[in-house]
């Protein structure tokens, strides 16, 4: 499979002629910027559609991670209570 792909690639390479536009990145028809950082689409834009579709699940999850240490201790106490009740009921 890799060999077939390579042969196709070589066929394209041999007939490739460099012109003014060929080889430039295509960004929705916009003229590419000279700054390479503008050409590279990445960061939060990647998987945007996926995370947007899951926003009803992800947003509350992110909001739950407040970064406040009181909440960290709160979850520890909640888990401890759950574990103790679970073990007590099952034994």
């Amino acid at each position, binding site marked *: 499979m890799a060999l077939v792909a390579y042969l196709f690639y070589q066929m394209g390479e041999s007939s490739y002629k460099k012109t003014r536009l060929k080889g430039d990145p295509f960004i929705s028809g916009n003229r590419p910027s000279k700054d390479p950082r503008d050409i590279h689409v990445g960061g939060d834009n990647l998987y945007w559609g996926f995370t947007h579709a899951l926003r009803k699940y992800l947003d509350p999850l992110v909001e739950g991670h407040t970064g406040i240490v009181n909440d960290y201790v709160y979850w520890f106490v909640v888990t*401890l209570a759950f574990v103790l009740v679970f073990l007590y009921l099952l034994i």
Partner: protein
Amino acid sequence: MNVDLLLQSPVFILGIPLLFAFLTPLADKVSKELRNAVFIIGLLLTALFVSLMAYEVYTIGSWTYVFGAEDPTAITDVSFFRITFLADGFAVLATLTIIITAVGVGIYSFGNMKDFDDLGKFYTLFLLTLAGVMGMVLTSDLFNLFVWFEVTSIASCGLIAYHNERGESVEAALKYMIISVIAGLLLLFSIGFFYGEYGVLNYFLIRDSMDGAFIDILAIGLVMVILSMKASSVPMHMWAPDAYSEAPDSITPFIAITSLGSLFVLFRLIFFVFRGAVEPSSIGNLLIILGVLSMFVGVSMALKQSDVKRLIAYLSVSQIGYMMMAVGVGFATLGTADYGAFGVNAVEGGFFHMINDGVYKALLFLSVGGIIYAADTRDLNRLGGLAHSMPFTTFFFIIGGLSIAGIPPLSGFSSKLLIYKSVYLYNPVLAIIALVVSIVTLALIGKIFFNAFLGPDQKIGMKIPRSMILSMGVLTVIIVIFSLFPNYVVSEIIAPAIEALGVAV
């Protein structure tokens, strides 16, 4: 080699890092070169004694070492207060995992931290953390466990706050300290329950004394939750992304290995000490619940991260979930025919994943440290094109990334396959969740790879020191070895660990 010296290896594994931790700042007063030499000698000597202990365990079997006794290996009655260590297959698995990461991180630190002052203190804290986490996994006494737990917590806290010119680092260290203090106090509280009930602290004696009384359940529940929190299990994981992302880049995998150390202790206690006192399915199902939550929430939170270190930190939380779920399935089936049929394979998968996770997670954190060193940012929105200037780091990241995602033929695949197969037989839904989490993990590794390494050369990269390349290379070689010989790892390292816990089929 004198056989007696080999039997003393557990005490050297703890004594050497402790001794060298205090020699390092003295050497620092003389010269940086001497300090570095003292540090690396301490680290390599510890690695040597871990290897010697492994050789001895695999050759003559396990033994208990009673510190300070006239003949430390001959005493079997440890009903009085003594510092005791247990050298067995499980201790070998844990110490090997820790020392591989420690050596990798230590070599990496030479290059990564070379521009910082006061490295004498840094290496002291490093070696103290190493001694602490080694003590946690080697001890066979609950009070000793508390002491090593505290040593690890205090030294790790210092390492997280090492960049104390940054408010975020100090904040992360403060949070870690609060969590660790609460965990430490409650651990002491639970030890008090055991001591009040039975008047002993040794693992063997507690195991033989426990009768499943209410006070036992209370103490077991406390110990389970405390160690799960230190292992960064959801929903008590929130300290981990803070601590991992704010610690110096070179030290992050080492903080992560202390979490893995807590998980080793948890598994040692539930299999070796608590097994007879509780219904296995109750603890097993609890581990499964915490494991599934960790896998799913960890990877979900990673989706929303644009800070590359926080992203890996959440993936790390997610991987802890695999181990808890697999070992939970194994524990839940203990004493039934299912244990022989697939439960033992689940435990094998879980333990194999632990050693794998220690190595590939270290490689990932270190390669991300290389990215940050070169580009001076950890924001994925600002990274790009680094493959042009950092081909080695790119290669190492690919190896670590594919391994954490469980892509064949890398080592992560071997352990995950064991987990999928065995967990499927317990409950197919668990296997499906594990597979989905692996797919999302791969997507997230792809996100980092695409963002940081692909794209046009932004000419922002600077050359990273050779020691950083060397340490990542060493870890990559270990991953390749684990990938090429997974059966050997399972039969020679994992199986003796399971046998040591007394649950071999």
